[in-house]
């Protein structure tokens, strides 16, 4: 794995006062930059055998009875910066239920819990870097920041490629949501084209009539530098 230096301008600012909690939780001093070492270039290897059959089915994975809400398939590929699929990546998701409530003791929003919705799922990408989750579309929810801030519907993603230095947590948004441009967390990202890359388009061809709609969300991880003079295949 050859890690490409992070293009920090594509990422949120650490200190983004519109998102108040970032004020005391952002380092004040500059990060110390240097090339990745073997510690960042390596990482744990996850296997399909770690997963259960319903791990990527959030509709059913808590009780076996279906959760309430708009049924959606979220699918896509995990890619490296050369555009190659990353197989064997661990993709973990968590989200609120259809009413915008998390199954967490700290979430006191008045929307009710769904007895059949846990809110987490995980998958390991296939040969071409593909993954998919069947879930319900999460609801928007209010949060304490400004006097009337609401999160757009979103799914949290944690992605683990082949290297510890690729580690990424992000959020996926849904095409057409008017709350996206109003969200202080979205707006921690200064670059609009970078924000756009977090918005999953509706994918009618991936949907299943009378069953679920589909949204496509590709994720790009750091690496690999494609070198002209390198004949050997990656990982060999």
């Amino acid at each position, binding site marked *: 794995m050859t890690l490409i230096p992070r293009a920090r301008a594509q*990422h949120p600012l650490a200190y983004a006062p519109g998102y108040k*909690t970032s004020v005391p939780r952002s380092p*004040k001093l500059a990060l110390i930059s240097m090339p990745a070492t073997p510690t960042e270039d390596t*990482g744990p290897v*996850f296997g399909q055998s770690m997963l259960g059959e319903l791990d990527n089915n959030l509709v059913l994975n808590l009780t076996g009875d279906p959760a309430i809400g708009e049924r959606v398939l979220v699918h896509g590929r995990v890619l490296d910066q050369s555009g190659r699929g990353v197989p064997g990546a661990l993709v973990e998701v968590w989200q609120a239920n259809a009413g915008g409530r998390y199954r967490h003791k700290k979430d006191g929003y008045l929307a009710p819990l769904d007895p059949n919705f846990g809110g987490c799922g995980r998958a390991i990408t296939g040969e071409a870097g593909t993954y998919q989750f069947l879930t319900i579309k999460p609801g928007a929810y209010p949060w304490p920041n400004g006097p009337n801030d609401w999160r757009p519907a979103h799914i949290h993603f944690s992605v683990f490629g082949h290297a510890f*230095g690729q580690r990424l*947590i992000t959020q996926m948004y849904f095409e057409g949501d008017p709350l996206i441009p109003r969200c202080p967390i979205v707006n921690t*990202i200064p670059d609009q084209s*970078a924000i756009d890359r977090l918005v999953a388009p509706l994918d009618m061809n991936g949907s299943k009539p009378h069953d679920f709609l589909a949204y496509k969300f590709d994720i790009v991880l750091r690496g690999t530098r494609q070198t002209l003079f390198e004949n050997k295949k990656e990982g060999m």
Partner: protein
Amino acid sequence: MVQKLDTLEETPSQTAGPYVHIGATPNFAGIGGIYPEDLGLKPFPDDAEGERITIRGIVHDGTGTPMRDVLVESWQANADGQYGPGTQGWARLPADQENGIWTLETIKPGAVGAMAPHIALWIVSRGINIGLQTRIYFDGDDLSADPVLARVEHRNRLPTLIAKSDGPGSWRFDIHLQGDAETIFFDM
């Protein structure tokens, strides 16, 4: 105009939010019955070679308050300085929800090439917009030839990367996001 480069941009980070434990360690978060156990419970099997150590720490925000909703991940070499196999060397360290202490029960890593024994940490939580990378080194080891530490200009900050022994096999490593003792974070 010029041709477009073929290189893709990395997907932007977003904060892990307050409920990262639902996704990463659901059993710890009180959501049982979906996964038999959480991933990253321990970095090495019980019979792994090496000196058993325990490292404890707190991540403090800029007001000095312990961050009780933080998730730390660790990645390290084994006692011989080798990475892997499988998931060996990797662990997830959710902070205690009452006092914010995270605990890593592991083996002391060996040196990796010219690098002194160290454990890489990746820190995410609500309010952290992009995960923070830092390292644990160990007090008493010879750190003089470590190429990463050599790149740190402000030598007075180096102690923020060095765990202190607080008993046999027991180490303390606190992290400060801001303030006089702000921990060194890397972009590497």
